[in-house]
């Protein structure tokens, strides 16, 4: 592919990626939002985080089936407890990495 081919493709991808990131923010941040929408939007972060994590923890993505013994899930339990106890983001990331590393050496 030539520079122009790449440029056309990536500009197109960039545009369709940017618009959904940009328009809602631009529009909603200059409106008075109804209370129900505020309440609903406040539940979005927890929902997205949970939804993003779920397949990583519960699903064998190769086999496309439920798998409740993944290293990711087993490591997630002490990592979660550490996060609850310390409320430290950096510490949790490092503890998670350490445990995952150990698990990969053991398994």
């Amino acid at each position, binding site marked *: 592919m030539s520079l122009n081919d790449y440029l056309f493709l990536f500009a197109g*991808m960039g545009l369709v990626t940017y618009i959904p*990131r*940009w328009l809602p923010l631009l529009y909603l941040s200059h409106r008075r939002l109804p209370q129900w929408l505020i309440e609903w939007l406040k539940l*979005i972060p927890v*929902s997205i985080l*949970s939804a993003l994590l779920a397949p990583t923890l519960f699903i064998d993505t190769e086999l496309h089936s439920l798998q409740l013994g993944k290293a990711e899930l087993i490591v997630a339990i002490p990592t979660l407890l550490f996060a609850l106890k310390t409320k430290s983001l950096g510490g*949790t990331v490092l503890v998670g990495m350490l445990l995952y590393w150990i698990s990969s050496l053991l398994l």
Partner: protein
Amino acid sequence: MFSLNHNISSDSSERNIPDSNLSLRNGAKAAWPICLGYIPIGLAFGVLADQTGIPFWAVGLMSILVFAGSAQFIAVAMLAAGASPGSIILTTFVVNLRHILMSSSLALYLHSVNRWFLTLFAYGITDESFAVNMTRFRKGGWDKVSALGVNHISNIVWVLSTISGVLVGQFIPQGAFGIDYALTGMFICLLVFQLQGKKFLLTGMLAALIATVWFLLIPGNSYIVGASICAATIGFWINRKAGR
């Protein structure tokens, strides 16, 4: 990139932000778990792109113009399979529709902020920067310049990691130090921060359940948007009913 940020800083100082350099530094500090997570993914992406025959400059161009990890992986796989540009662009659009939800939620904390600022800010909205910024905004003491810092520092690291992946990726051992778990660990902790009361716990559990079932039944990544909207809506209604 930094001179750009500097312009923003001086603009925001008119809006009662005491020290925008400090804000930017706070943003950088908050972004490090994201950066740690982006490095292995960016390197892996670069290696994949290299194997597909995409040169380093094209990878850099793509990371700058698109800046969306999962869509970039899918695009490279589609290019390898000989897909047309139109179908790749359409797929990218669908995969990245989830940003509508994030962009909408961020509006809660960026109310009546200058439109140029929002235009620059929106470019850096990703799953990761969204999660970090929303958690910080909710806790309080977080401002838009710090949030912009998180977005753009993550972006710089992503661009550099993907280019490095093409150039030196095959020499780097995979999975060292459990670095592949960095983003998972970060999401786990940010999820814990979000669980401030029963309705958040309930909504989070619903989202995990729905996402798991959705993922198994429907191919692609529609589970993120689907499960988030369903869980937030059910959580919202249960909370309303319980409140009366």
